[in-house]
């Protein structure tokens, strides 16, 4: 590794001195890296070639200013990949300013992989719904003539800015949509096939027809279950729970005035999407508990060493635990360090739990009226 970096450094020195041999070697080494990066961000064709040449020009511009900044600590290939990405991002940002009408065709391929990666991390279970979420995010980015994207102030990385916007949108989606999308207890006790059919019919509004459901399940099962099994499952579900499309506000197509409803048919029954009183209490309790926990974490995190803090941020950037190797890549450390950090984080979490337990009432001291009161602020950790 050291030898590689030494020779990389010497190679760049040769390019800066404009030695033809060094330039030839440099281009032979750099072009595959730059082309690989361009291929990740640009659709193949003339655009990709133009982007590639722009990156090459950028490396030479201002008397090799970008190459001069190479300090020989990392491999040249890593450095070049990062520089190429920055150049392409700046190119895209300029394009958004100059020709916003056509910029989407460049914007979407540039961020597609990153947005999909973030969606998969935030919604690991919703494989079938990820495409919808992706479309949702894209719509929000395009909204009002790229209002969110154009709010970029030019400071820092454009990629980082856009991905932060995407992250905020995803968190909003988690908060807004996920609580409504809880499988009823009766369904959670059923098989996975039953649950997926319930999701297809109730959440995704697929008609409760075996053939249509089979199409909707395509990709969720390998192989796709036979029609007879789907028919049986539909019957089982219908017996267990009302199998009607979701009646959440965004899915309601029509508002019916109450007086008209009463005049029309007094015996007509409407499905009530609101939680039952028991569910309401449980939700309230959970919200309160969550608020306490978040406050406790916020207070305790202020005293954390920065490495531990960043480890926690990395871990909580995904719903499912990330592989240690991936965390190590983001943390710029070895995998063994990640295990060490995880142990420390677990101890930290356990300490927060214990302190919360001690600082709050014991269950016997509470009466049921507490459920209707505001949560007490968490004490200093």
């Amino acid at each position, binding site marked *: 590794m050291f030898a590689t970096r030494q020779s990389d450094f010497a190679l760049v020195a040769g390019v800066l001195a404009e030695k033809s041999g060094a330039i030839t070697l440099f281009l032979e080494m750099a*072009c595959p890296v730059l082309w690989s990066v361009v291929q990740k961000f640009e659709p193949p064709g003339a655009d990709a070639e133009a982007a590639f*040449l722009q990156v090459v020009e950028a490396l030479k511009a201002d008397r090799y200013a970008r190459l001069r900044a*190479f300090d020989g600590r990392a491999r040249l290939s890593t450095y070049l990949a990062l520089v190429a990405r920055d150049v392409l991002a700046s190119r895209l940002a300029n394009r958004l300013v100059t020709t916003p009408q056509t910029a989407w065709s460049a914007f979407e391929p540039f961020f597609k992989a990153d947005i999909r990666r973030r969606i998969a991390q935030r919604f690991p279970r919703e494989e079938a719904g990820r495409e919808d979420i992706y479309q949702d995010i894209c719509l929000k980015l395009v909204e009002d003539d790229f209002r969110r994207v154009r709010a970029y102030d030019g400071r820092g990385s454009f990629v980082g800015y856009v991905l932060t916007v995407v992250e905020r949108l995803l968190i909003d989606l988690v908060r807004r949509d996920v609580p409504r999308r809880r499988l009823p207890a009766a369904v959670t006790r059923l098989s996975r096939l039953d649950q997926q059919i319930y999701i297809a019919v109730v959440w995704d509004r697929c008609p409760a027809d075996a053939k249509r459901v089979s199409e909707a399940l395509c990709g969720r099962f390998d192989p796709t279950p036979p029609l007879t099994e789907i028919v049986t499952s539909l019957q089982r579900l219908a017996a267990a729970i009302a199998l009607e499309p979701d009646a959440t506000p965004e899915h309601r197509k029509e508002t019916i005035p109450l007086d008209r409803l009463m005049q029309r048919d007094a015996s007509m029954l409407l499905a009530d999407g609101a939680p039952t009183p028991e569910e309401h209490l449980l939700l309230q309790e959970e919200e309160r*508990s969550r608020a306490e926990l978040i406050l406790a974490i916020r207070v305790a995190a202020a005293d954390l060493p920065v490495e531990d803090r*960043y480890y926690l*941020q990395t871990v909580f*950037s995904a719903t499912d635990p990330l592989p240690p190797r991936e965390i190590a890549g*983001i943390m710029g450390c070895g995998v063994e360090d990640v295990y060490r950090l995880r142990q420390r984080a677990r101890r930290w979490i356990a300490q927060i739990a214990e302190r919360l337990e001690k600082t709050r009432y014991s269950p016997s001291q509470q009466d049921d009226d507490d459920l209707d009161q505001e949560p007490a602020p968490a004490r200093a950790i």
Partner: protein
Amino acid sequence: MTWIRNPHLRAQFERLLGAADDRPDGGIEDVVRARLAADVAESLEDPAPTVSANVENDDEDPARTAAYLECWLTGSEREAYLVSLAANPRRSANLASAVALLSAIEAEPKTAPPELLARARSVFADPAVYDHRPILARRNRVIGWSLATLMLLIFVPGALVLVGGRIDWPLHSETHLRGLDASAPPPLAGGAPAILGPVPETFSLKAAPAPQHEPGDAARAVPELRSCDLAPAAGTVARSAGRDAENAVRSSSTAPCPPIKAEAEKARDAGGINLEKGAAAASQRAPIITPALPSTR
């Protein structure tokens, strides 16, 4: 009711720190965990005032990012970088994206088409690609030289009249120039090759000059100085002489940072400056423009 009585909440919170293969089956726990992760991530994002004070500006430095990703940042430099990551969601999002990109291109390397390689060669061979703002640069150059000449014409005679009260033009000028000849290092234009080390025309990696120290160690040894930082300092001097002079100063400190820093530090510690090596030499040469201005006794 405390959250401790909410066993599923606590369990899911603890599971967020679980191993990668410790994935539950789904259902309501997923929902709880997804929201918890989002909430906790946001609550951890708020930087404490002490943290934000340490954060550097928003400009990304690919060299430092690359060094961080390859685990070559250690000690205070790594900590400073982590502080900036923890306090700046944009930077951490950018980093995560960079990690994903590097993994992707490593897993799926591409070969550049030969015609593109040829075009890249022609771009590097084309002198017009040096500067993206040739017109602006030319204009600045002209303005800079004009201003510098004007200043010389006004201030040199003025200072002589004010301080000396005696005008002995030829004698003073010659003395001054002789003094400069004796003490000044070689011209800036000649500096770059010396800094970079001799690079043979037929370049080969084996024959190429290599940093004498581990580059990372060298950088760590002198964290507060960077050869790239010499440009602004020298630029202050050169600004009055126009963009050409500034570019010349920059070109004299061309070599990448760490090894040169180490050389500079070594030379400085040894009590002298090795003019053959390092940006330190360039930085010592840069101020030669200043003595020309007072030109008084």
